[in-house]
């Protein structure tokens, strides 16, 4: 059983310099209220692991604008010119990872695997400095697991056990990230009674979730 956590209390859990896994794809499926609470609090120096940095003024873009991001590990930053400017100015370090590799690296971190063996990135700059492993005569890049201190998750529904489901393309990185952080904070559109989400509809079992955010009343 969990009680809903106040936004400011959730934000206060996250220390300077934390590694944050943040769900979302161009801000779709990103926990906006949690982002706002972090901007409000103003503690930063974060390493953000996410598919992208959204647009200026949306989702992770708000953390970038507020100067709370020290490093970004993402597959794409092209639609947020501010991230690009800060990268060029040396204010933000950016590590670019192919999208399919990024999600598998986070999954590996979450499910206790030693890494990902993929052919994506072979023969490209992504290969640099990485182990190559040969399996059945084929070459694969070894990509290392990623884990976060916190995962900031956006769900459709949460129940008071912390069970989550997700909506349409707002799934994206969320269910995988919910397995790969020490502390998981989930923001749902609505919190429902225990039992209201059918066991077959639960996509993140509640035991993975540490805090559910209070709703908008």
């Amino acid at each position: 059983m969990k009680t809903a956590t106040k936004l400011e209390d959730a934000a206060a859990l996250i220390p300077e310099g934390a590694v944050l896994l943040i769900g979302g794809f161009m801000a779709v499926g990103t926990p906006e209220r949690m982002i706002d609470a972090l901007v409000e609090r103003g503690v930063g120096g974060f390493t953000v692991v996410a598919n992208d940095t959204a647009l200026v003024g949306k989702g992770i873009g708000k953390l970038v604008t507020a100067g709370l991001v020290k490093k970004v590990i993402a597959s794409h930053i092209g639609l947020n010119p501010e991230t690009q400017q800060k990268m060029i100015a040396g204010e933000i370090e950016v590590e670019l990872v192919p999208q399919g590799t990024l999600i598998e690296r986070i999954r590996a971190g979450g499910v206790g695997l030693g890494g990902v063996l993929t052919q994506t990135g072979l023969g490209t700059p992504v290969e640099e400095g990485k182990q190559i492993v040969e399996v059945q005569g084929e070459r694969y890049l070894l990509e290392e697991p990623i884990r976060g201190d916190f995962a900031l998750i956006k769900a459709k529904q949460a129940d008071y056990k912390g069970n989550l489901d997700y909506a349409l393309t707002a799934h994206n990185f969320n269910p995988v990230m919910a397995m790969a952080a020490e502390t998981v904070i989930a923001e749902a559109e609505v919190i429902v009674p225990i039992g209201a989400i059918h066991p077959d509809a639960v996509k993140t079992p509640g035991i993975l979730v540490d805090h559910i955010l209070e709703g908008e009343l």
Partner: protein
Amino acid sequence: MNAKEIIARRVAMEVKDGMLVNLGIGLPSMVTNYLPDDVDVMFQAENGVVGLGGSAMPGFENKDLTDAGGGLVMAVPGAASIDSAVSFGLIRGGHLDMTVLGGLQVDERGYLANWMVPGKMVPGMGGAMDLVAGAKQVIVSMVHTAKGSPKIVPECTLPLTAERRVSLIVTEMAVIEPTDEGLVLRELGPEATVEQVVQATTAKLIIPETVPRMAL
């Protein structure tokens, strides 16, 4: 017909019944406009849907239903929501029959560069590397030259997207197939001649005795 329409119409002819197809942003997404009605095809958007249904018409918007460019879209009956791990599992695992992508350069090996111009454009590769490494067929759709400068070159000078030969290059001037022997000129655009294609291409082209015109 402008260049983009020629390309989109010609790519559409490659889409076959029963396929799962991923279309890149921009020019590739225009392909949907030219599909025959009797082709039953499912589109995937790598951000998480099988059964993409085109841009959302007014009144049909859902903030949680977007394509890989972040635009509001619809879903067809029988669509499925998938998370990013499943989405790229489909791509990497050989379940995606075709991807159509834009290109900056393609070379004689059939290798594509389409994600970065060092020092100028570093947006990130997004899903492009997985798509080119994983899809069963990779179709590069692009205008033949960049402001007159050839894009089909002996060897890519830009960083590669994948170390894998693409299936087909479709431009407004030509359809070119990378093969073991090199780049073969398969078809000509509505207004192009063999000489013009050769002129606009620095890569060596293999030119069969007859090169038909695109049957648009």
